[in-house]
Structure formats: structure tokens, C-alpha cells
């Protein structure tokens, strides 16, 4: 039974924790060039490094970053925080490693490695609960650990969804088998992480198909499980209510982000371009179906020569395929059927061209319009299900005992023929790495000796370790060889000290830039041009500004963070004259353009130049700057309109001497405020008090739940040891 508690344990003379540690070290060795930053991160992994850097830098300063000033000219951080799962307590691993002296980039990569290992341990525990054999579960762990799922941490972010999901299923199965507070809280905490990391709809789809498969194949047992769960809830009412409350509170950031995306201030060019729904995070069906599971499989099948191995290629040790082939003579049981049905349902749902189910769901189930990477299902769930399926088959195979001598000879002949056939197959495919053949030979030796009774079951873990690991070590050597080495140290844009509000250059550099711009801009015949934006995400107004101004003008303008003007002019949103705007910027005209009717227009000669602040002075001084705010001390001889060239967003507020003042959207995409003459403090702040409260409260809540979970786990473990 899937949920029966008793498990048969083939205990090994080799301590499993020691074996786990050894496998972790071997994994680090296989990926040493990646983990120790000799090879660059690729694709989305690079963006995620940035997001984590911003967030951990903020945490270290005691600031919850809600604005990222480093993304073009600034953007709300919420999208990136949701992507990375900002409330995950494991993020502190990066900070702790960095604090003890490990360089940040290595600390980050070690965090990913440890988090991945943590996920694999969860998978082992889940496999052990399902298969009820620790040696076979260890094999499942090895197959997944050394599959190419691990490579995705260096080019993608799937890991951040995978790890909490595998622990969710572990806690879910464990709770169904043995309702305990620890498992219930673990289940809830995993859900909390899942719903605050990236897009939870992958998990929802996986879970719903899991439930459907469960209902189909384990309907009778469900009654028993429901009864146990009800009994637990009755006996732990307060605890359950509190856990549910935690879970519902954790939905808060996701809901807020959904609402934010609905407003349209943020734009997602790539994902939203083909969508008919107004919400910016929705995806059009053409975007979704551009690459899916079938493409990932076809892509992997193009790399029969493993010497060409690179990222995003589905790979698993050849031992898995041998088990698959040998398993055809084993009996089908409900567990195997369950995994089959679950995988089959997922494939039908998530492969649009295979059946019309996905199209139907896209039209009628709202959340299907909000996720697009269907090939993620291959990595997140189909690969682990396949491994669990194989593990079940191997268990059945190893328990097969032919009763007669003829039967034994026939079975051994079958094993030999399968191995010989597979050997010929890999040879004919042009697979020319030695370890491929070694795996087949070792597998044949193992199975032959096992069925001849020459191998004790206690040695199985170490045998599995040798057979499974041999090929990946060679394959990942080729991955290292085929990847781009890191030629220079990747420095985050603000790893240098701030010299002025956010990433401004030194004064000498500014003068140099200004002179160079002056040369380039002099004699410009046009100040506006139409370009298509290709940023993944941006702010609507900044996007408009960037795409309609001459690029040189945009570059110059963005270099100066503070500009003082004497005059403002109203430029309506539906009548933006980019030519006029560009010319005004290029000639440093003393007029700023605001998007609403000005309360005052300013005094002084219109023909004079705007005052560009290039360094701190008596007039403008920075008292404080950080992710979410900047505090300036001004001492102007007359009232001026101060423009802060950081992206405008409705979440920004400005306070002059503690009193909120009107903030204008200026020059299409930036922030501007009237500053009176004399000494004043001007405080630009992103977010409201509620935003700050929410984020800090959620952080504390997540950390508290996690610590309590560890406490419950320790108690449960101590109880087990005593028993």
C-alpha cells in the first residue's frame, strides 16, 4: 500500500549518513568548476544571483528591499522576491557563509548546492516511505541526485520550487501514515514556501493530479486516511487552526503581487506579449506552447554523444534504463500503477499538442493563464516519478526468485540479453564515453551475482553508489568542458561603494561622460526614435521613455541622478512630445515636464540651464540612501523643482521635513518634487508603513514556524530513538 507504514529495511554495514555525506562530496567534486565559480552561471541563474544579492545585502543591513535600484533605473522588487521566495529561511545560509569569510559568489553557489542536497534528502525520505526499503530508496536518491536536475541550478531556478515540493510530498505521505504535529507543520511550512516562491501553479497542478490519481487508485484507503486526519485535527484543534492561519497569511504577498500586475504599472514584455488577458503576468497560449516537455525530450535525444553534454539536457544514469528494461517482466502493483497514472495525467495535461486537454484547461481554469514553462513539469515531477517507478520495479525485480533451475537460467539469460542489447544500442548511437559501457557491465555483474546469491543485501547501497555514480562523473566533466569559463570576476553592479545616490560615477568620470555626451549630442538631428523594448520586465513609463528617446540622450540623462529645475511644464500622457523632451534634455533646458497640471510653474529665466548635481554640495547632500529610500538635505537659495532620476512608480512617496508632499511623474518616467528655499530634508521613500510591517511580519512568521518545525522534528526524532 502506498500509505502503509511498515517498511522492510535492508540495513547496511555502511552507515547511510556517511554514504550521504560521501555522495554530497562526490557531487561537489563533479560540479567543482561550477560550485567554485570557475564557470559562469548561465541564463536565468544569473538573474537569480542578482535577486539574491540584492535581497541578502538588504537583510544584512536590516532593510527589507522593496525596490531594486539596479534594474535599469529602478523597479519594484516584489516580482523578484516572489521569484526567489524571499521568506525562505535557508537564504540565511548565504549570509552565514559570507560572514565567515567565504566570498559572496561562492557562498551563493554553496547555498544552492546545500539546498539541492537538502531536497535530495527529502526525496530519499519520501522514496523510503513509499518503497519501504532503504537501499532501494538510496538508489532512487542517487539516480535523482546525479541526474541532470542538479545542473539546472546553474542555468535555471527550478530548484527553488522543487525542494519545498519534494518535502511537501514527504510530509504529506508521512502525515497520512502517521499523523504527527511535526509532519502537519512540515506540510504547512512547505506550502508556505511554495506559495511564496515563483509561481505556485506548477505545484497546484502537480498536487491536483496527485489527488486525482490517489482517488482513482486508493479510494478505499482515503477513507482511512481521512479518519486519521480528522482524529488528529480533533486532538490538535488550536495547532491546526494556527497552522492554517499561517498558510493563509502566506498567500498575502502573492495576492498583492497579482493585484499589482493587474494595475499595469509593471510590464512583462516577453511573457505577456501574446496574452489576451489584461493582467501583466498572464501568458498567451502561443508563448506557452513554444517550448514544452516534448521539446525537452527531443532536445535531450539529440545528444546521444554525451561528450557534447550541456545545460538543459535531460540525463539520468544508464542504470535507470537497464532497470526500466529489466522491469518489464515484473508484476504491476497498485503503487506502480499509481505512479503511471499520475505521470500519464500530467503528460496529457501539460503537452498541448498531444491532446486538447491543456487548451481546454487554459480556456476554462483561470490559473492556467499564469504559467508558461510547461517543460518544468518534466524536471519537477516527471523525472522523480520515473525514478520512483524504477525503484519500485527494481524492488520487485530483486525480490523475484525463480523456483526452478531452468527458471534461474532463463532469468539470468534474460538479464544477459537485456544488457547485451543495451550495450549494442548505445554503441550504435555513437555513445563513446567509456563510463557508459562500464555502467552496463557493472550492472550485469551486479545482477548476475545477486541472483546467484553471491551478494548480500547489506552491500546494496555501496554497490548502487558505484554503479550509478560512475557515468555522471564523466558526463559532468564534459559539461564543464563545454561550458563557458568565467573570464573575469562577476561583480554585482553595486559591489563598489556608493558614491552618490545609487551607481553614479566618480566626479571625474561624470565630467568625462558629460564631455563625451556633449560631443555626441551636439549636432543631433533628431531626439526621438521608436525602438522595440526587449527587457523581460520593466515599468510602463520607463519603457516608454527608453523606447522613444534617442539612445544617447537616454544614456546621458540616466547618468545624473539629481537635477534641479526652475520651471515645470505640463506634458499630458496622451500628448508626449518626445522630440521636445529629448531636445530639452540634450540642451539641459531649465524646464521639467510633468504629467499632471502643475500647481506652479516656477520663476527665473526660462532660457537658463537646468542644474545638474554631480557631487554633494551645500545645496544638495545625501544623508542616507538605501534600497527603499533616499534622504537628501537641501539648502536652496530659491524654490526649485528637484528631479530624482530613479523610475517613477505609484508606490513612491516624498516627505519634506516629515510632511508628505506631492510627487510628480516627471519627464515621463522619473520622480519630481517642489523643494522650498532654505534648509530642508527631502525623503523619498518606497512603500507604505503597512508594506514594511507586512514584510517584516512575514519574515518573522516564516522563521518562527521553521524554528518550531525543527523543534518538533528534534522531539520526534528523540522519541523514535528512545522507542
Amino acid at each position, binding site marked *: 500500500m502506498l500509505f502503509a507504514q511498515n517498511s522492510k529495511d535492508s540495513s547496511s554495514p555502511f552507515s547511510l549518513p556517511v554514504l550521504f555525506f560521501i555522495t554530497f562530496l562526490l557531487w561537489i567534486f563533479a560540479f567543482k568548476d561550477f560550485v567554485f565559480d570557475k564557470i559562469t552561471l548561465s541564463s536565468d541563474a544569473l538573474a537569480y544571483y542578482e535577486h539574491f544579492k540584492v535581497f541578502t545585502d538588504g537583510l544584512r543591513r536590516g532593510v527589507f528591499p522593496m525596490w531594486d535600484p539596479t534594474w535599469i533605473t529602478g523597479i519594484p522588487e516584489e516580482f523578484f522576491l516572489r521569484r526567489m521566495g524571499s521568506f525562505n529561511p535557508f537564504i540565511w545560509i548565504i549570509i552565514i557563509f559570507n560572514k565567515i569569510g567565504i566570498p559572496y559568489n561562492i557562498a551563493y553557489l554553496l547555498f544552492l548546492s546545500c539546498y539541492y542536497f537538502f531536497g535530495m534528502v527529502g526525496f530519499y525520505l519520501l522514496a523510503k516511505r513509499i518503497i519501504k526499503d532503504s537501499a532501494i530508496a538510496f538508489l532512487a536518491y542517487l539516480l535523482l541526485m546525479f541526474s541532470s536536475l542538479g545542473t539546472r541550478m546553474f542555468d535555471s531556478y527550478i530548484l527553488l520550487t522543487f525542494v519545498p515540493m519534494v518535502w511537501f510530498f514527504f510530509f504529506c505521505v508521512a502525515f497520512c501514515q502517521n499523523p504527527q504535529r511535526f509532519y502537519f507543520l512540515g506540510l504547512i511550512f512547505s506550502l508556505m514556501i511554495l506559495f511564496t516562491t515563483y509561481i505556485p501553479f506548477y505545484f497546484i497542478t502537480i498536487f491536483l493530479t496527485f489527488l486525482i490519481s490517489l482517488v482513482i487508485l486508493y479510494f478505499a484507503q482515503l477513507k482511512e486516511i481521512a479518519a486519521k486526519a480528522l482524529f488528529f485535527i480533533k486532538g490538535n484543534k488550536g495547532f491546526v487552526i494556527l497552522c492554517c492561519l499561517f498558510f493563509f497569511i502566506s498567500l498575502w504577498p502573492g495576492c498583492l503581487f497579482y493585484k499589482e500586475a493587474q494595475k499595469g504599472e509593471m510590464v512583462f514584455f516577453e511573457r505577456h506579449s501574446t496574452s489576451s488577458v489584461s493582467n501583466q503576468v498572464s501568458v498567451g497560449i502561443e508563448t506557452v506552447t513554444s517550448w514544452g516537455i516534448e521539446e525537452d525530450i*527531443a*532536445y535531450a535525444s*539529440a545528444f546521444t554523444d554525451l561528450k557534447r553534454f550541456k545545460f538543459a539536457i535531460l540525463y539520468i544514469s544508464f542504470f535507470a534504463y537497464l532497470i526500466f528494461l529489466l522491469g*518489464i*517482466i515484473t508484476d504491476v502493483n497498485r503503487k*506502480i500503477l499509481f505512479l*503511471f497514472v499520475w505521470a500519464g495525467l500530467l503528460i496529457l495535461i501539460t*503537452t498541448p499538442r498531444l491532446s486538447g486537454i491543456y487548451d481546454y484547461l487554459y480556456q476554462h481554469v483561470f490559473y492556467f493563464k499564469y504559467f508558461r514553462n510547461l517543460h518544468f513539469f518534466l524536471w519537477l515531477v516527471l523525472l522523480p516519478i520515473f525514478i520512483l517507478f524504477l525503484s519500485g520495479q527494481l524492488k520487485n525485480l530483486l525480490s523475484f526468485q525463480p523456483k526452478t533451475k531452468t527458471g534461474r537460467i532463463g532469468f539470468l539469460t534474460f538479464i544477459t540479453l537485456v544488457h547485451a542489447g543495451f550495450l549494442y544500442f548505445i554503441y550504435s548511437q555513437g555513445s563513446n564515453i567509456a563510463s557508459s559501457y562500464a555502467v552496463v557491465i557493472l550492472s550485469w555483474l551486479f545482477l548476475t551475482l545477486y541472483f546467484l546469491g553471491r551478494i548480500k543485501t547489506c552491500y546494496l547501497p555501496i554497490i548502487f553508489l558505484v554503479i550509478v555514480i560512475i557515468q555522471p562523473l564523466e558526463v559532468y566533466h564534459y559539461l564543464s568542458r563545454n561550458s563557458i569559463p568565467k573570464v573575469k570576476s562577476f561583480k554585482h553592479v553595486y559591489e563598489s561603494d556608493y558614491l552618490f545616490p545609487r551607481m553614479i560615477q566618480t566626479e571625474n568620470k561624470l565630467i568625462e561622460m558629460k564631455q563625451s555626451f556633449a560631443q555626441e549630442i551636439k549636432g543631433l538631428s533628431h531626439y526621438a526614435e521608436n525602438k522595440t523594448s526587449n527587457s523581460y520586465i520593466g515599468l510602463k513609463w520607463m519603457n516608454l521613455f527608453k523606447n522613444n528617446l534617442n539612445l544617447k540622450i537616454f544614456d546621458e540623462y540616466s547618468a545624473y541622478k539629481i537635477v534641479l529645475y526652475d520651471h515645470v511644464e505640463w506634458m499630458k500622457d496622451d500628448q508626449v512630445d518626445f522630440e521636445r523632451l529629448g531636445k530639452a534634455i540634450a540642451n539641459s533646458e531649465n524646464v521639467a515636464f510633468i504629467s499632471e497640471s502643475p500647481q506652479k510653474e516656477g520663476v527665473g529665466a526660462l532660457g537658463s540651464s537646468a542644474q545638474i548635481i554631480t557631487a554633494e554640495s551645500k545645496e544638495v547632500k545625501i544623508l542616507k540612501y538605501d534600497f527603499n529610500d533616499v534622504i537628501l538635505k537641501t539648502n536652496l537659495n530659491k524654490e526649485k523643482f528637484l528631479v530624482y532620476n530613479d523610475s517613477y512608480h505609484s508606490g513612491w512617496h516624498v516627505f519634506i521635513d516629515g510632511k508628505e508632499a506631492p510627487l510628480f511623474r516627471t519627464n515621463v518616467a522619473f520622480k519630481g518634487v517642489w523643494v522650498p528655499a532654505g534648509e530642508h530634508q527631502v525623503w523619498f521613500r518606497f512603500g507604505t508603513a503597512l508594506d514594511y510591517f507586512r514584510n517584516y511580519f512575514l519574515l518573522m512568521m516564516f522563521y518562527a514556524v521553521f524554528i518550531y518545525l525543527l523543534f518538533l522534528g528534534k522531539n520526534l526524532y528523540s522519541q523514535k530513538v528512545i522507542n
Partner: protein
Amino acid sequence: MIKFFSFITRKVFFLYIVIFFIAYRFLDYQSVFEISRLKTLNRLVPPSFSGLVQYSQGTEQLKKEDLESYLYYFNKVIEYVPYESDLADAYGMLGFCYYAKGEPHKAIDFYKKAIGLNPHFFWFHYNLGLIYYKQGRYKEAMDSLDHAISSNPGVIVEVLKTSRIYRQVMELSKYSTQNMDIGLKTVYRNAYLLLITMHDARKDYPKMFDYAGVAIEVKLDDDGLFYFYQGLAAYRLKSYNNAIFALQESLRRNQNNADTFYYFGLSLDAVGKKDYAQAFLKQAEVRRRVTQGYSFDPQKVNLKIF
């Protein structure tokens, strides 16, 4: 029987049979498979074909790892693409790459396959002819080059611009088609010159005369070279008046070739104009000491992709 059936249906392979049947009967797995393979080709494209194009133009050596990546990609194109028109181009590219790799036999096979799918494309015939020539298989070389020169140059440019493979190669190597016409003229010249020199070697002077004449007709003669070969052929055929005419045309275009003066002098001598003949023969001697003359070296003509 029931026992046996019950035994079989309990096994995993029966489950696979059922799944396979369902997939075969109810799901359009074949088109899914074909479409997904085509899409993966986009990911298998090398980041640049600059190495291939520069090698084709004779400006750079081709790196081994680049060549392997091109071979890998074009082999995948052949494996995945069902459209014949693109396959011909892919075969042609493979022919070129295998020749660059030093495997002319494979190159010949691929060019033959390319020609089988698209028998009217200049570059397949030209490159195949060149390979035969370098291997000393002159008869086959002449056949191929004959086919090459019979194709319309105007059509070639259009085909290159519409071919998916060629467009991809040009885009990813930032190759401009602006001077393609000039390049084509050069290779057509080479084709004719190779044919002429081969017929010269075989002492097939009537053919040599004809080819030179056609080359002149299609305006490939900018420097008098084809007039020279026409004149040479005519001289060897003892058609001295034709020789004089052709060689004179050659001299009008180029007065640096000693051989032109030499054969012109011999032709004049043959028709009895000995004084003039002596003058031209002396000019020939002078030029032989000073200039190199026409410098067509068949061994230096190399395969190209465009």
C-alpha cells in the same frame, strides 16, 4: 489459457503495450514528435557560422571544434527536417564541411545527395567538380563543372536568399549579400578556366575553343584571359586567322602576358607575316623577364559555400 492471460496482464510490459496502443490510436504523437524535433534544431544552431564563411572565403583557417559543431548541426538538420528543399542545402553544407575535415569521399557522397535533391544548383556541381579535379578525376570533374556553368547565376542568388539553411548561415556570420554577384562571377570564371585547362591537357582543342568562346560571350573576360585561351586553342588547331583575332583581342585587354605575345607572334609567323612575328616574339621575351602574366593556378581554387 486464462491462467496465461492472467499472468501476462499482470506484467509491466503489458502495461506498456496498452499505453503504446492508446498513444498510437488516440494521440497525434507523430506530429508532436516531428514538430518538437524541428524546434530543437533552433537550439542546436551554432552561435555563429563566421568560421565557416571565412574559411570559404579563404581568409581564415577553420578551427576543429567549430567544424565539429557545424558537422553536428547539419547532420541533425538531415535527421530532423522533413522538407526536401532544406535537406539539399544541408547535404551541400555537409559536403563542404567533410571536405574541410579532410574526408573527400564523404564530401563527394553528400554533394551527390545534394545534387540528387536539387540538380540545378550551381554550388553543388561546382564544389563536386573541384573535389574531382583535386583528386585527378578529370572526366568526372568536367561533367560536374559542365553542369555548374549551365546554371543561371541570377537564380543562384535568389535561391540563397530563400534557402533556410543559407539564410541562417549568412545571418549568423553577418555575411552581406551585396557583393555576391562579383563573387559569383569569379567562381564562374574559375569553372570555365578549369574546364579549359582540362581540355587543354587532354588536347581537346575544339572543346577548349568552345568553352573559351562561351566564357567570352557571357562576359567573363575582363582581362583577355579567355581570348588568350581561345587564341591558343585556335593556334593548336592550326586555325591561325582565328588565333590572330582572338590573341589580338586578348592583347587589347592585357599587354602583360608574355604567352599572348608569344602565340600571337607564332600565329603571325604561320600566316607569313614574319617581321611582325619577330617583333611580337621579342616582346614576349621581354615580358617573360619582367611580368608573371596570367596567374591562374587550378590548385589554388578552393571550394566555397557561396
